[in-house]
């Protein structure tokens, strides 16, 4: 026990103080156990359990690997997550950089941050409808474009398929990027530009040798987080496509919950377990890269 801990508990004996002190956080741990850890661990446990006998098995994982329907769902989820993570990261970064260092009036920055706070939380069902109003076959923009002789639905665009859904996901992806990349851009010190110019470097060389390498861990970390953000998204896709046109992993789990569409309870757990694994990798990757970025940007 450290000095400071002893100091704030003058009346009690240190040893008993320690055990009583842990009691203070028990409500939290009990709550977290009941409503987070236990339900989550159910998924893990039942993934490795035979649905009938309850004995340990790898059958569910093997079935998952063999099921083309489930694999297709994962692959679609991963594809849309990669596309929208990259798109959101690039666009979000350019926006944030423009607002912070682009020589724009100061109020642009705070406006962008407010918009981003709103947009990154404006997701799910209402978001889906907003894009239906904009880009469905009778949507506002569709009609405008039709009026100038350009019908996007003639060119293979559909709001309810991959690229349409990607466009909708971008609505919460790029604002999230703006919010999480901002500290990194703020961390780019002005003296670095000046020091590199002073040493003879052009703007391009500054970006190539200094700014980009410094930002790279942050950019990668944020892109990974955006990937996870899209990967776990469910309500938006469900509301937009009614859960039929786009078989994402989350949609499969939703359908499995409504009724055992996979015809195999154990497989349902395995699909959910797989998502948790992917998200865990995402969060670990994010925090590792974030720590690396902070070391430089302090």
């Amino acid at each position, binding site marked *: 026990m450290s000095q400071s*801990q002893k100091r704030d508990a003058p009346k009690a004996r240190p040893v008993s103080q320690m055990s009583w002190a842990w009691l203070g*956080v028990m409500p939290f741990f009990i709550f977290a156990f009941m*409503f987070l850890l236990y339900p989550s661990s159910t998924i893990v446990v039942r993934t490795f359990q035979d649905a009938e006998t309850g004995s340990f098995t790898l059958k569910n994982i093997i079935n998952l690997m063999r099921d083309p329907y489930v694999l297709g769902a994962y692959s679609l989820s991963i594809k849309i997550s990669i596309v929208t993570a990259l798109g959101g990261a690039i666009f979000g970064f350019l926006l944030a950089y423009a607002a912070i260092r*682009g020589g724009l009036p100061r109020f642009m920055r705070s406006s962008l941050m407010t918009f981003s*706070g709103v947009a990154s*939380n404006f997701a799910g069902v209402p978001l889906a409808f*907003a894009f239906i109003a904009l880009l469905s076959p009778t949507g506002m923009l569709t009609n405008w474009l039709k009026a100038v002789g350009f019908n996007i639905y003639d060119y293979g665009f559909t709001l309810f398929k991959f690229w349409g859904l990607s466009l909708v996901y971008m*609505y919460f992806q790029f604002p999230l990027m703006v919010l999480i990349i901002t500290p990194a851009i703020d961390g780019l010190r002005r003296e670095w530009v000046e020091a590199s110019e002073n040493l003879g470097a052009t703007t391009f060389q500054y970006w190539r040798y200094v700014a980009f390498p410094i930002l790279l861990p942050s950019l990668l970390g944020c892109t990974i987080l955006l990937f996870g953000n899209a990967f*776990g998204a469910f309500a938006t896709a469900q509301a937009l496509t009614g859960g039929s046109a786009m078989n994402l992993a989350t949609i499969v789990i939703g359908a499995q919950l409504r009724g055992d569409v996979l015809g195999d309870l154990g497989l349902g757990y395995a699909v959910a377990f797989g998502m948790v694994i992917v998200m865990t990798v995402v969060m670990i990757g994010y925090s590792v890269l974030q720590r690396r970025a902070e070391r430089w940007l302090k």
Partner: protein
Amino acid sequence: MKRGGVIWSWFWMILGILYFFLPLLATFIFSLKAVKDVYSFKAYVNVFNDPAFQLRFPASILWSVLTIIAAILIFVPTAYWVRLKVPKARPVVELITLLPFVVPAIVYVFGLVRTYSQPPLLIVNSPALLVAGYTILSMPYMYRAIDTGLRAIDVQTLTEAAQSLGAGWGTILFRVIFPNVRVSILSGAFLSFAIVMGEYTLAQYLAKPAFAPYIALLIQNKAYEPAAATIISFTLIWACMGIIQVIGGQEQSGQIAGGH
């Protein structure tokens, strides 16, 4: 910054503004078209007069408020106690508060339903489970907001000062600590409010009345009313973010997004 750079900055900003506002504009215009050939607020009137709305919108508000109360009662004492007495618990507590990011909402509700829908744990129909679930979903924002607030004040000294003046733990917590982290609690509370009001997955699969599933239903059955409901939902989020900005007086730090 060179002149060309500024032009590019404006270019990206305008593109961002269009991306942000066009869907909202389309929705808004659409919401005004309920009566043929004139703009009207008929769709909004219809929504407000819909008995389903009158049940589900207040229900969502109730869930939000209960969630916020539960979150404050659980997380403030915990965060305070961890800072003051059991710093060793800190890494574990922080890890747990970040776990909801690892478990997507649909996976989480899958776990909840499967865990609590068979005896002896048959509580899947209890509204308390929904509130508990929302409290878990709001945990990363709430706990972090509170913990950041506590970091800004000197918990140790404040507690010692209160103790030396003869205050008990209840007085310390409610009269000293709560008021000092009020701004952080409020920011976290409004963020949680915005998230719960727009939350679809938990309410849908725990079969409880709520606003987002109601909009989903409207989308399937009506044309103009879902537009009105979308605008209402958007206005709510905007109001919450606006309030957070005003009370916080500064930019929100990076929020990792909610239940999509």
